[in-house]
């Protein structure tokens, strides 16, 4: 088979990057000893709109940092008017890394992992020492499949399935040896499954792209027979070029979180429906790098029982493509 010169150079480029990819993947898979996520204060969702499948041998790395703050208890759809709460507030600082590799033109393998620099619960009662957890969150390995890709009509429908895995099965402990409060733990310490579905349509003349991303997560039990509830989230994105290399993105996301279970017993103060509006700006550098900033504003909350709820969250992300990945790059450049 004849290989054209640009094609050969492209293959060489990919081969040169392969050791880097393998190294990052090895780090993601081998951090077994590192202490290991999350409850009503919200899960650290990523900060990238790059969610489709890649071309064969293409590599993409997405890194992001997120800060989240929670300080208002809700009962149903309204703030609680109780005089005493368990915590005054809770917050976390989280860094995530996602690496994607195009196995073929249809299949893309994705590996995600992240680290909580802190995950703090400030108890209201001054007799209690605040809990501060840090360590690896759960990792995810996902295989995405391009169900329908039309590069002319700029339509993509892709689905993915994968596993969530903990870096340790042992729940994180406080300095006194007892278990950390659930909201302060960096990991669920349990295996799980995840599935995604993406519907994307681009309007190139308008430099506009819309997509709907749905994600389902099932969490297994940890060693103490505690199971974090199922999560179903759906995000609607509208992305529009507003200046050269600058994009504005509006996201409306809803999260439906099922109730947690302990020893077969449903936990009352768990489970919620949350709707978040996220404005985002994204700047493309040389068609390979992409810098984004986003801010999460909760617009509707419905929490079962009484729970501490997220107030705001912001994230910054940096994306690097190691090849000309998908048709969506056409409007980026």
């Amino acid at each position: 088979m004849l290989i054209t010169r640009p094609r050969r150079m492209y293959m060489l480029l990919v081969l040169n990057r392969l050791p880097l990819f393998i190294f990052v993947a090895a780090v993601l898979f081998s951090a077994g000893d590192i202490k290991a996520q999350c409850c009503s204060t919200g899960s650290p969702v990523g900060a990238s709109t790059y969610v489709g499948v890649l071309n064969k041998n293409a590599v993409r790395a997405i890194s992001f940092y997120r800060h989240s703050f929670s300080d208002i208890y809700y009962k149903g759809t309204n703030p609680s008017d109780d005089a005493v709460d368990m915590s005054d507030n809770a917050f976390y600082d989280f860094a995530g890394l996602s690496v994607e590799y195009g196995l073929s033109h249809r299949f893309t393998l994705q590996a995600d992992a992240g680290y909580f620099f802190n995950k703090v619960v400030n108890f209201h009662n001054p007799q209690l020492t605040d809990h501060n957890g840090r360590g690896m969150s759960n990792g995810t390995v996902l295989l995405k499949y391009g169900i329908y890709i039309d590069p002319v009509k700029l339509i993509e429908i892709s689905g993915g399935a994968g596993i969530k895995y903990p870096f340790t099965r042992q729940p994180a402990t406080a300095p006194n040896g007892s278990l950390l409060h659930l909201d302060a733990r960096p990991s669920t310490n349990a295996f799980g499954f995840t599935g995604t579905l993406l519907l994307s349509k681009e309007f190139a003349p308008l430099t506009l792209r819309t997509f709907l991303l749905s994600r389902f997560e099932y969490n297994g039990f940890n060693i103490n027979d505690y199971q974090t509830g199922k999560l179903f989230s759906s995000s609607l994105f509208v992305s529009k070029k507003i200046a050269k290399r600058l994009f504005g993105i509006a996201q409306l996301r809803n999260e439906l979180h099922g109730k947690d279970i302990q020893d077969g017993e449903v936990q009352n103060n768990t489970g919620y429906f949350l709707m978040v509006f996220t404005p985002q700006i994204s700047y493309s550098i040389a068609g390979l790098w992409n810098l984004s900033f986003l801010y999460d504003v909760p617009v509707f909350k419905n929490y079962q029982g009484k729970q501490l709820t997220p107030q705001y969250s912001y994230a910054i992300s940096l994306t690097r493509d190691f090849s000309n990945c998908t048709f969506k790059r056409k409007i980026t450049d």
Partner: protein
Amino acid sequence: MEKHSLIKSFPILIILLTIAISGGCKKEDDAPQTQTDKIEFVSLVVEKDNIEITELTKVSATVKGNNLTYIWKCDNELGVFEGSGAEVLFTICHGGTFKVTCEVKDNANNKASKDVYVTCVE
């Protein structure tokens, strides 16, 4: 070409799913109530066995032995302990009756444990 890639990718998926299924849903056996010759667990007392949510109650262990290490556990992951050693404070943000366990061990790895129950009213 594309069929080839598809077939190549399937074993990876199967391996990942096998790892997930074999590692998940495992439960550790509950620690049995134990007593050895080296450690004598005399008593485990809770100051108030009925508390309101976020209220603290003192739990005290009396144990005979040397170089003892105390490990405090609740059968609900939401239980919070303050302090360490033979006397701790306990609270929880959920209603229900919860088992509080104190496990004690010494340098020779002799172990003993006792349970008490605390009811939390919402």
